[in-house]
């Protein structure tokens, strides 16, 4: 299929691409079920309309009991269902942390590999503009440290659909994080069902001077800055890992081998962020490749504040990315 045709005929919103992945998997495997608060109406939109086609038993509304329905998926998956949870907002994971981190993530390992737990926990996540501290979290750094959860964080509608398909087909608990601000982004998405393997990153823009690894909603920001710097003759490569567990370190190291410079942009608090992990790994495994100290661009170590100027100051700006890139070139 020619890419040009796809772009013209199928320019799809990110949230619709997720829905296409969900719909395809509901159709492919009758053991796939979606549960969550108001998944019938779907405020955020990923499950909207699915209940009409698949019925209220396969697209099932739950009470507001995150800990319990996150944990119920463990028992359900152990005996044959493939549950998919719409958690709605990323920080709601905190309500369910025991069931996610102690149960879903650990049961296979603790049992000596007796059981597979095919579960997807997806949610809208990250800052969306004055949503305030409890609706702006990005929990991926914390969850990367749990061990036993795969973590998916797509940046384009194309990746959103293909990764949703892979996440649901995967036999492990997968956390799928949809950056709130990407929900309304449009991009080319093939109509047919396709999958993108978990653990395979993607070079979103080729360049030769600096590698910028960007995650989720940081990808479009990094691309914007890269395009601007092109005019100054600075060639930026933007690498999107797409999944954080497993993490495609080979792709990142290959890119750094070409450019010799690394900036990691993470839509999360700086301390122990994915950016911290990636910079540490590159420093250990690729120290000789580096021509300059690697840089992290992430949030201030504060809860995300409400008031617009405060929020803007706490989060990542294009100029933060710009400055970090220039620092590696100085």
């Amino acid at each position, binding site marked *: 299929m020619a890419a040009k045709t796809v772009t013209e005929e199928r320019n799809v919103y990110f949230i619709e691409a997720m829905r296409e992945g969900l719909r395809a998997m509901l159709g492919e495997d009758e053991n796939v079920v979606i549960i969550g608060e108001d998944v019938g109406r779907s405020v955020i939109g990923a499950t909207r309309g699915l209940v009409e086609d698949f019925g209220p038993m396969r697209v099932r509304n739950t009470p507001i009991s995150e800990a319990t329905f996150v944990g119920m998926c463990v028992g*359900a998956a152990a005996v044959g269902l493939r549950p998919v949870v719409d958690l709605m907002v990323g920080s709601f994971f905190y309500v369910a942390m*025991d069931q996610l981190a102690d149960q879903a993530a650990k049961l296979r390992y603790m*049992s*000596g590999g007796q059981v597979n737990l095919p579960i997807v926990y997806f949610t809208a996540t990250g800052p969306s503009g004055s949503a305030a501290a409890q609706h702006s979290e990005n929990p991926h750094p914390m969850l990367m440290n749990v061990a036993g959860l795969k973590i998916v964080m797509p940046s384009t509608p194309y990746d959103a659909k293909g990764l949703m398909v892979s996440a649901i087909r995967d036999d492990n608990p997968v956390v799928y994080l949809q950056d709130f601000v990407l929900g309304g982004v449009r991009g080319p998405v093939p109509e047919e069902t396709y999958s993108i393997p978990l653990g*395979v990153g993607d070079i979103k823009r080729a360049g030769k001077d600096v590698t910028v690894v960007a995650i989720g909603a940081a990808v479009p920001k990094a691309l914007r800055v890269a395009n601007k710097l092109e005019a100054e003759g600075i060639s930026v490569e933007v690498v999107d890992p797409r999944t954080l567990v497993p993490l495609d370190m080979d792709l990142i190291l290959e890119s750094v081998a070409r450019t010799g410079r690394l900036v990691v942009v993470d839509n999360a608090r700086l301390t122990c962020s994915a950016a911290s992990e990636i910079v540490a790994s590159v420093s250990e495994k690729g120290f000789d490749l580096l021509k300059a100290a690697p840089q992290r661009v992430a949030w201030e170590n504060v809860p995300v504040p409400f008031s617009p100027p405060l929020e803007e100051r706490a989060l990542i700006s294009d100029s933060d990315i710009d400055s970090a890139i220039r620092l590696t070139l100085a």
Partner: protein
Amino acid sequence: MTTTSALKDLSQDDAIMMLRNMIRIRRFEEKLSVLFKRGKLPGFVHLYTGEEAIAVGACSALRTDDRITSTHRGHGHLIAKGARVDRMMAELFGRVDGYCRGKGGSMHIVSFELGIIGTNGIVGGGIPIGTGSAWADRHLGRDNVTIVFFGDGASNQGVFFESMNIASVWGLPVIFVCENNGYTEWTPTSELTAGNIVDRAAPMGIPGEAVDGNDVVAMRFAVERAVERARKGEGPTLIEAKSYRWNGHNEGEEAFAGAYRPDEEQAAWRERDPILAFGERLVENEWLSRDEWAAIDSDEQAQIEAAVEFAENSPFPDAEEVLDHLFAPSKERA
């Protein structure tokens, strides 16, 4: 509370098997207490001694393809659901022939083929998991049921209320069996718990039944009634089984816990030994002679000794197994 139970409604074979299983649990736990004191066990153990009638009565009402979730005080549930004591012992020794190849230990022994789908170190942690297996079985059109075992302490966790609520609303085939042994770790449960635990069923619109947890026959029939309802699609039941743990919260607690349970209280409950009481009933009923009873006991003792030998002869897992079993292999090609 159900205080009388009808032995006549049991078969003789069932009754003797139940006595045997209770004895097996008792001897297993007594052995662990000794092994712990001798420093033979890595980690720590929570013993079930005194509560055997609950697990055995409850699990005797299940089919082999029914499911349970268990607790940190779980050895009794596992044995009652058919787990082999040698593989359990090997797990407790951290050996490769243990049910979990040494990755789980005392608090995490599971066997999915036996329907033991989660044994938890987190108080209340298994309640949603068993609610979930009941959901899946119902969704998939099967008639399996799940027993969720949990303690009086767990009855104050939010997931208990949440799980009863969703099980009621969705009509799930789950039986919530609360083992009330009187103590939430080292504090009397009465100081920490409002009202009667069994009464928490009423606002959820589900049946609740308090049972003498030292009467294995009463337990059997209370659970059987709940199982029957669940299989017919009539939803969940809460059962509060009142009993007492003879040992501490965990072995070795005397080093830090102090004397927190009155001697008279402990003595009174030991007078109500569920195994002795049941054995005497079988003898009175002429289903069992004292010699046969003694033979069962010595046979079970021998099995436990054999289990220890099995465990000691089983190798530790290769240290590189630490990296195994985290994720199932991916079907998608990279």
